[in-house]
């Protein structure tokens, strides 16, 4: 286990009148091989923190380091490139593109990265879908899939470019308990067996209980970071 992503005094203030503080001087270290859960009451800034960690949003204060390298001053294109290579996102809603079938959805980030040719990208996407138990659903369009299946396609897409960091924003929020358990098992496996850093925002205390690290937030601040065994 080693630190991969470090937030130092990270803040996000919305420049409205009066200013709204979404994230307030957050200090946090995300480690590889570790499943981190972020919990807290609704509206406390969990999603906001996750967007900052995943380079989707820019902080208004503090620093963010990826493997010791400062990310705060990078251009939009450089941040996009880092998202493409190092981050995988899973949201509460599956967020698949409706015009593309499951396979094409998973292929999108692979083709954008451009390390594999089209055939290679397709083979990798099929393999990922197979790992998710969706080998026979590859050609289906998202609206022909169940909620659990869609979320697994979304996870396959998040893993498409073999990212070191997986970020989930209530990825089980819309799933029944069986599907939910399956996703949690998968996330723990990604952390423990494949050595990735997995960060998951959740309301579900059962998930928080099985996490290696449990981060608690209140009113934009991190109030507690607890390592669990």
């Amino acid at each position: 286990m080693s630190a991969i992503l470090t937030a130092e005094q990270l803040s996000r203030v919305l420049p409205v009148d009066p200013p709204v503080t979404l994230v307030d001087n957050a200090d946090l270290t995300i480690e590889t091989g570790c499943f981190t859960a972020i919990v807290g009451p609704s509206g406390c800034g969990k999603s906001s923190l996750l967007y900052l960690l995943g380079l989707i949003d820019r902080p208004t204060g503090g620093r963010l380091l990826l493997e010791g390298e400062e990310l705060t001053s990078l251009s939009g294109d450089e941040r996009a490139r880092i998202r493409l290579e190092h981050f995988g996102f899973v949201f509460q809603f599956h967020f698949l593109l409706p015009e593309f079938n499951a396979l094409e959805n998973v292929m999108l980030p692979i083709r954008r990265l451009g390390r594999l040719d089209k055939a290679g990208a397709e083979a990798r996407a099929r393999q990922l879908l197979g790992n998710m138990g969706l080998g026979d659903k590859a050609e289906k369009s998202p609206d022909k899939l169940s909620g659990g299946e869609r979320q697994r396609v979304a996870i396959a897409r998040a893993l498409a470019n073999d990212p070191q960091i997986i970020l989930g924003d209530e990825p089980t929020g819309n799933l029944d308990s069986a599907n939910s358990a399956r996703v949690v098992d998968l996330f723990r496996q990604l952390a423990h067996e494949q050595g990735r850093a997995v960060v998951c925002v959740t309301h579900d205390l059962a998930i928080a209980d099985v996490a290696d690290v449990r981060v608690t937030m209140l009113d934009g601040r991190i109030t507690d970071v607890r390592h669990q065994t």
Partner: protein
Amino acid sequence: MNGRLALLFHIASKHLLVRRRQTLVAVSGVAVGVGFFLAVSALMVGSQADFVKTLIDAAPHIIVYDELRSPPPQPGVRSFPGGAVALRGYKVRNEVRGIRDWPAIVRTIDAIPGAIGSPSLSGAVTLRMGGRDEPLGVIGIDPTIETRVSTIADKLRKGHLSDLEQVQGGVIIGEEMAMRLGLGMGDVVGATSAGGATRSLRIVGLVKKGQIQLGQTSGYMLLREAQSLLNRPYIINRIGIHLADPYSAEEVAHRLETRYSYKAESWHERSADFLGLLVTRNAIMYTVVSAILLVASFGIYTAVSNSVADKRRDIAILRSMGFSQGDLQLVFVMEGLALAFTGILVGWMLGFLLMNILGSLDFPIGGENQKFPIDRSFRQYLIAAASSLLAGVVASWLPARKSARVDPVDILRGAA
């Protein structure tokens, strides 16, 4: 890099295929614009070419006259160029009218590839027939050369230009004048020149009426005979020039005039008023066409603009995945370009069809069935394509920029 463009185009084409109706409307807008541009410009350019051809062929491409646009410098001034000497009250030398040294000028002209110069002498005589007088402007020509320089050979009702060489004192006059004098083919008429010389002329040809450029008071004679009738042996006062490329007339005329100082009038100069009319016509045409293309580009603008608005969620998802702002702008520009390209192709077919329909129509003018002059050159297709493409780029780039302003955070938070 190519993989990236292919991927972005894949995304763009999906967007277009999902929104079929809007795509259809935008494509038809461009297609109708391009199609009608082609039809209109084929007619305009075709009729213009027809018109200019008539203008060009009506008379020699250039006519050199024995006139000077400005008097030549006097010998005294020529001897002291730029000198502080002002000469006044000198006796101006009287020069015999006519083009001096004309064989040299004709040789210069004939040295231009494809060009022919036809020297002629014109002067006034009076035709007298049974107590009736008619003034006639005789033009002395060399028939073999003149037929290559002007189209008068085609304008004869009766007779041939070459008959002038066969018949002693042969003359060709307008059919209306012949009627007024009661003359027919082969009749003899007396002609008196300003100098008082009288000679008998025989009618060997009649010029059709209704030829504006030739005039009904002109008559053609052999150059040699005209020179003797007008008592101006070896003198000519006009050189008609036919060029291989009529559009070089202005430049050649200028060259001749600078070199020999005789007035050399190109068909451009002669028809400046008509050519001015054509400029106005073209201005009208291109205004109408720009309006059509503008309307067509509105269709593209609307389609791309709606696409950006509809796909805000997809934009946010793709951005979170690692697509850049530039990637997404390119997706939407590609949508506009795909619409423009498809519209252009369909428009080309439509234009081709319209041209064929227009070209097959008959309409009677002066009792003769005529067809529209249609210009089918590929240039029009290229102009239509280039301008629609330009309009399409602008019309898609403007809304595409808006895709960069979509903040993924707003969308992701709003949907979650």
